[in-house]
């Protein structure tokens, strides 16, 4: 009996040996993200790698891929081997599930807050002194005002921008879909350049000096002021904007095949930790954690925000109506 027990113990240790050996092996994750998250994930990746090394002894390297959210989703569907995606909007991740079959339909229920560890909103960035006196959305359709925003066909941020403008028009007294369409059509008539992603639009506005106002993620606008100084730009918070929820998920099929599923889950869960939330706030994303949000309350003024579900019936419907081929955006842009 004792011999049998010893044999069983030896077998157990033997069977664990490869796992331990694997755990020590350096591993690489690929995070496919949208345009303006470069600075955020640079710091998150470093912090997570340090925490993971301390916890497991394993060295982890996280590679990043950035681009327009819709374009990034298509790359993953086409075979880019992402362990995780951190995209600008849920519809793009839905596409990875429905078209690529790489994640289950309930992916958004797997992490807290609809798998959105931080939020943001859409604001207006203008040049210092606000020479065109832009105060709110209607100022963007005035003659002589040049507006910079990216292409909603390729950029998630651009879709949030578009929907925020549409929602404002809809919420005006007597507002309806026709008036909202007319308003957004006028707005896009003032757009001289459509970049593929939000970071490209920031470059157009900030570095190339084009346009009078940039419709931007709040985090991107705050970053521009931090990087270039408050003497160059200022933020205009519109009377109404949209709650932008950029979600995250593990790409199950890829992570399973690469054997990185546990690590990828831990990486995304790290975003919800106080440390991860601090980093999000530091990089101008609105944190979900109440304590961290309270600490950064001065950075994020309270705004009147609508949600995609309230006004547009969710992303699937909004996408089909506005951004699908032949949708409202195509009609608007073709009529320019």
């Amino acid at each position, binding site marked *: 009996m004792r011999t049998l027990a010893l044999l069983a113990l030896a077998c157990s240790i033997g069977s664990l040996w490869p796992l331990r050996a694997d755990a020590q092996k350096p591993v690489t994750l690929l995070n496919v993200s949208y345009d303006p998250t470069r600075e955020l994930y640079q710091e998150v990746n470093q912090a997570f790698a340090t925490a993971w090394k301390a916890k497991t002894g394993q060295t982890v390297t996280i590679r990043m891929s950035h681009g327009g959210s819709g374009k990034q989703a298509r790359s993953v569907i086409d075979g880019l081997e992402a362990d995780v995606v951190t995209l600008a909007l849920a519809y793009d991740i839905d596409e990875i599930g429905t078209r690529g079959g790489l994640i289950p339909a309930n992916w958004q229920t797997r992490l807290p807050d609809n798998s959105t560890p931080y939020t943001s909103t859409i604001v207006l960035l203008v040049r210092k002194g606000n020479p065109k006196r832009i105060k709110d959305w209607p100022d963007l359709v005035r003659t002589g005002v040049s507006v910079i925003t990216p292409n909603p066909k390729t950029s998630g941020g651009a879709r949030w921008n578009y929907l925020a403008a549409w929602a404002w028009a809809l919420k005006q007294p007597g507002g309806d879909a026709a008036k909202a369409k007319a308003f957004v059509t006028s707005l896009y008539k003032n757009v*001289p*350049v459509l*970049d*593929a992603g939000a970071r*490209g639009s920031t470059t*157009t506005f900030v570095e*190339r*000096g*084009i*346009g009078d106002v940039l419709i931007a993620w709040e985090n991107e606008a705050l970053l521009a002021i931090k990087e270039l100084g408050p003497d160059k730009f200022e933020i205009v918070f519109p009377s109404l904007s949209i709650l932008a929820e950029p979600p995250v998920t593990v790409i199950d099929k890829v992570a399973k095949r690469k054997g990185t599923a546990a690590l990828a889950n831990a990486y995304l869960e790290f975003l919800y930790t106080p440390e991860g939330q601090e980093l999000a706030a530091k990089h101008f994303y609105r944190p979900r954690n109440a304590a961290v949000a309270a600490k950064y309350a001065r950075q994020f003024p309270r705004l009147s925000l609508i949600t995609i579900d309230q006004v547009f019936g969710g992303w699937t419907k909004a996408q089909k109506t506005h951004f699908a081929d032949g949708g409202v955006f195509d009609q608007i842009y073709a009529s320019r």
Partner: protein
Amino acid sequence: MSRPISGLAAWGIALLWGTLPSSGAAQQDTARPLAERLERLEQQVRILSRLQELAADSAREAARTRTLVTVGSDGFTLRSADGNWRLRVGGYFQADGRYYLKDREALGTSSLIIRRARPIVEGTVFHYFDFRIMPDFGTGQPTIYEAYLEARLDPALAIRAGKFKPPVGLERLQSATDLRFVERGFPTNLVPNRDVGFMTSGDLSGGLLSYAVGLFNGVADLGFGDVDGSDAKELAARLFTQPFILQGRRAPADLGFGISGSLGKERGNLTVPATSMLRTPGQVTAFRYRSNGTAAGTTLEDGTRARLEPQAYLYRGSFGFLAQYTISRHTVRRDTSAAVRIRHQAWQIAASFFLTGERASFRSLTPKRVFDPRAGTWGALELAARIQETSVAEAAFPYFADPAVSSQRIRAWTVGLNWHLARNLKLMIDYERATFLGGAATGDRPPENFLATRLQTAF
């Protein structure tokens, strides 16, 4: 010297002076719209410049992901921008005329034939893996001539599986479109044509040394197999060196030499005796083992079959030279006789020369001046000549082969003229004379005087 101001000009100046602002404030009023206009123009320039940047980005992105389609002398090719995926559709077609001159005994039948009609579909999947499918519709017998998959893991290591040319005969390994004569020489009659198997091959030291080793079902000399008639298999291998290859175009010559061979066992049966035969330059059978469908009257391959071929080529300037010496040893038996080893052998020495100055090569060539009568250019002309011989050991006669119908030896000489109109179009004419030892009821089979023509297109 100053010129006097005319009265009219003076009035004009006075009028203009009167319209100019008379104070600093008024000057500022004028300057403001000018500054705004300048700012607008500057914005326009920046917008145009940014649009140009974005267009360039889009063009770069499109080039990165665009599928390249090319149509040209290499056929129709689709290629992904990263080169990992490729599909080529090509092929070649050869229409021959065969004329047996002074053929009083009607040993050959003069005719026009479609010698080869081979569409080729080949490609690359996932960067490392190539495939090729080549059927042949020539001579009225549609068949899959080649079909294989190859993993190119490294220049020094490729693994191929399927149906293809075993690495034995030098001229067999030369593409049918690059031959200097309408028909290959006698040594090719003693090596496999196509066989099913797998092979490892590669180039070492930048091609200085090439190797190939493969295991095949095993086929008779000049044989072509899809399935195996016995459990026995055949090993084939080749070592080949090109000592000047690293010097590129500064090399004194394109010299290659090596040795190849095969070793295996074969067990023939009454339906498929698996024995070999010899053909004349005009593709008429001049030697065959006895076969009448009965055990007593049929010679079978039964035991070891071994081939060995030293081989070499030399191309220098417009001159080309190719030589092979092939030995093929067979173990045969008939009825209840003991198995006997019979040696077949063949050699050829072939030379070619471009009258129009092209650089000769083992592979295809592009004429310096393609055929274009309006421009006064006529393509490339190439002269070719060869001598060759093939024989079967005396031990084959008379028990295993009938000396009244099978020759023991064939000697032949050939002269030819090739007109390369373009890389894809070639006309050939050969005259061959073959003499025989034995092969007739009395004495020798009459000499064969064979005229062959070919029209070839390849793409």
